[in-house]
């Protein structure tokens, strides 16, 4: 049984999601219990996989073989579908599992029955399955399939509130851009398949020679994944999407964006190795800086709390890109500062998931109690909702990178790593953080401070529990960062930095 856990982590939410509307026909409580059970199971699976990978190394799982470790078909060719979970994949799986465990209990209470709760839960589980599929697969075509699964589920969730005008519009824009992104990704896969006759990532990584077609495919991969990861200037869909999706499901959308970034790292570090020149790394760095600054400026002028947090979330993508981009630029010489920045970028993925997740839950709680997210109508909620105010304050300060919270721990690594490459990079990143501090001070003041406001609805206990889990998480990550850096982040960063040979050897032998 335990040998099949990687595939169960994907298959159970995929099939379990479709069972949700059927169970809802029998009893609503049964449906809710089932959804929770599926998410708990997925959480246990990704935890098990992570512990296994971090302690024993890479985990390869082959479908359709007599034995799950039989990677090569007769003839020595890796033709079967396979999952290859290294440190980075396991890390991504942990982020997805953690946010799902927090988001689903919140969603069960947050989503009104009359607004199609069953379908929202189904879409959430499908999105989770797609994210884990993207993280664990070792096959480019399957990566595309899961990319499409996430795109369809995410777009349906964004346009979920069909009775509003903005949600379907946001879903339409996102769907169009996701389709463009998906088409380019598929085209790149087709180019590589045409040239090498294979779809297996490790096999292609071994065979790539840097030909014109290889580089053309790399360009298409880059453009497609940068767009899906919401890097500026192709981030425009993200604030609309994050702002319109039901708050509880915004957490999964954050992971969906991160897993696209994961795909980008997988293509650049594992598939192409060093087959690109430093210009590609510099492009990632430049777009990272642009993303953090543009999003921070745009957050400064938002009046909708949801959109403000959405821009804050987009700006954090920039920090991840800066950290990993510095790692990419310095990959050829592998200086120590490159690994430090890379660790910072990877660590920031976990911190961003917790921090932005908590902010979206706070936005959901505010919307639940007041029925609006408009900062012009909000104010004084801190008197009636002190727990939500505290969580929002903590998350806002963490997002701005203030010590001793988790955002600072990862940003200090990014700052110090990027400083060695160029102090200008660090200066811009610090400037964006200062802007974000201003943004969240303004949002906190607007929503929670001021004369006491009426709070028509109490915040349910499960909301507070979900928020408390994330708040404690970001405090612990900030206070004992070394523990997580060594135990979880370093294996993930090392999988990108030096793990390519191990990845190839695990699949192809030798």
């Amino acid at each position, binding site marked *: 049984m335990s040998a099949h856990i990687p595939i169960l982590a994907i298959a159970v939410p995929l099939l379990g999601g479709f069972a949700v509307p059927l169970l809802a026909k029998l009893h609503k409580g049964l449906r809710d219990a089932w959804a929770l059970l599926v998410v708990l199971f997925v959480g246990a699976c990704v935890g098990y996989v992570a512990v296994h990978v971090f302690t024993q190394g890479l985990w390869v799982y082959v479908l359709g073989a007599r034995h799950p470790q039989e990677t090569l078909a007769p003839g020595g060719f890796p033709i079967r579908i396979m999952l290859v979970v290294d440190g980075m994949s396991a890390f991504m799986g942990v982020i997805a599992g953690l946010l799902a465990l927090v988001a689903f209990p919140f969603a069960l209470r947050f989503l009104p029955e009359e607004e199609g709760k069953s379908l929202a839960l189904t879409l959430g589980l499908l999105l989770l399955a797609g994210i884990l599929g993207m993280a664990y697969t070792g096959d480019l075509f399957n990566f595309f399939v899961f990319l499409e699964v996430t795109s369809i589920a995410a777009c349906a969730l964004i346009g979920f509130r069909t009775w509003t005008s903005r949600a379907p519009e946001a879903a339409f824009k996102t769907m169009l851009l996701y389709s463009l992104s998906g088409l380019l990704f598929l085209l790149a896969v087709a180019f590589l398949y045409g040239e090498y006759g294979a779809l297996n990532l490790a096999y292609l990584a071994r065979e790539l020679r840097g030909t014109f077609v290889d580089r053309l495919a*790399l360009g298409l991969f880059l453009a497609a994944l940068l767009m899906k990861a919401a890097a500026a200037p*192709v981030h*425009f869909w993200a604030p609309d999407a994050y702002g319109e999706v039901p708050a509880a499901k915004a957490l999964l959308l954050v992971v969906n964006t991160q897993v696209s970034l994961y795909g980008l790292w997988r293509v650049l570090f594992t598939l192409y190795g060093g087959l690109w020149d430093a210009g590609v790394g510099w492009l990632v760095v430049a777009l990272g800086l642009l993303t953090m600054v543009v999003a921070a400026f745009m957050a400064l002028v938002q009046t909708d709390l949801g959109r403000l947090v959405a821009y804050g979330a987009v700006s954090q993508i920039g920090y991840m890109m800066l950290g990993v981009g510095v790692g990419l630029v310095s990959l050829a010489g592998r200086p120590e500062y490159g690994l430090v920045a890379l660790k910072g970028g990877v660590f920031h993925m976990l911190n961003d998931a917790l921090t932005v997740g908590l902010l979206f839950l706070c936005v959901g709680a505010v919307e639940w109690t007041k029925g609006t997210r408009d900062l*012009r109508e909000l104010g004084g909620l801190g008197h009636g909702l002190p727990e939500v105010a505290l969580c929002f304050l903590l998350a806002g300060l963490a997002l701005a990178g203030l010590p*001793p919270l988790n955002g600072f721990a990862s940003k200090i690594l990014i700052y110090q790593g990027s400083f*060695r490459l160029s102090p200008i990079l660090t200066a811009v990143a610090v400037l964006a953080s200062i802007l974000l501090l201003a943004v969240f001070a303004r949002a906190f*003041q*607007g929503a929670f401070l*001021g004369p006491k406001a009426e709070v028509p609805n109490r915040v349910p206990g499960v909301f507070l529990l979900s928020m408390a889990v994330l708040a404690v998480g970001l405090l612990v990550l900030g206070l004992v960062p*070394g523990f997580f850096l060594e135990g979880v982040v370093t294996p993930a960063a090392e999988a990108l930095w030096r793990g390519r040979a191990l990845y190839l050897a695990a699949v192809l032998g030798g």
Partner: protein
Amino acid sequence: MKETLTLTTGQGFWSALIWAAAALATLLLAGLLWWRGRREYKRGTEQELPFLSGERAENPGVGALHLYWGLTEALRPVLERLRSWHSGVINDYAGWFVVILGIVLLLVLV
């Protein structure tokens, strides 16, 4: 234990506990100064009202949109340009995608 609490950055280290100790010491110092301060202040009296040119303000609350007015006014040209990029028109967004695709292809092919 030390490795658990400390983050080594390659050029130095960061320890949240040392920071917390320093923050506590600063708070204690601030508390000491406050304790030695003037004692005429009384809660719930007119002393708590904001002083607005000697006028009694009916609604003295400062709204969220009033914050950073100077900063946003100074940055207005930049912010207006950024707003115009976020036009909400899908054709513009697809256009930006084509621009990025062009830049990326130029970078990897040339």
